[in-house]
């Protein structure tokens, strides 16, 4: 057990518990927000675990999750557009908190990795994670309603 694995355990334990509680209870808008933020919890945890166990291949999982997680949310946002238009989920506080946690984890892991190709890969993962999170949150809040027909 080192600090990386401890941080990953805390993030996974607290974050995924909160996310599970969020998706399993309350109104649809809250469930959607919780489902969206699951990616923002699991992906930084994978980055921390990759560093903690010295397994760079775990970063591939984080990269894939950062790419596919927001896409999944966009599918939900499209399919549930009518329900979400009635009760629009607004969670910019949670979204920016998740973005801040992601950025902090990426910066910490980058600092530990040092300047190399691996660091660029981590930065690509971080940009995809934070950018995807912001886009998916905006989509949930009806930010792209004008493209619904397209």
């Amino acid at each position, binding site marked *: 057990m080192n600090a990386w694995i401890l941080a990953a355990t805390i993030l996974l334990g607290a974050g995924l518990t909160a996310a599970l509680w969020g998706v399993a209870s309350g109104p649809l808008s809250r469930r959607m927000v919780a489902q969206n933020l699951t990616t923002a919890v699991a992906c930084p945890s994978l980055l921390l675990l990759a560093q903690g166990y010295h397994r*760079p291949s775990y970063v591939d999982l984080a*990269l894939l999750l950062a790419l596919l997680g927001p896409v999944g949310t966009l599918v939900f946002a499209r399919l549930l557009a009518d329900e979400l238009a009635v009760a629009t989920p607004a969670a910019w506080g949670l979204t920016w908190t998740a973005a801040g946690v992601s950025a902090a984890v990426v910066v910490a892991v980058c600092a530990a990795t040092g300047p190399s*190709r691996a660091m*660029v*890969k981590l930065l*690509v993962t971080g940009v995809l994670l934070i950018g995807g999170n912001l886009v998916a949150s905006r989509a949930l809040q009806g930010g792209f309603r004008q493209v619904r027909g*397209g």
Partner: protein
Amino acid sequence: MTRRTALAATAELAAWWAAFGLLWLVLVSTVDALEVLVGASAAAVGAVAARAGRRAVTAR
């Protein structure tokens, strides 16, 4: 297609190809001649697809 649009298309494809090629080189675990060859080929396919996608979106 005029000479000007052909030039623009070539430049766009080259830009996509370079971006995807760089991304490939960043993401692979070891850089060797075979990876560079496969990456350049995959980036070329990706560049054509990216330009087609970009045109499909902007032409609306």
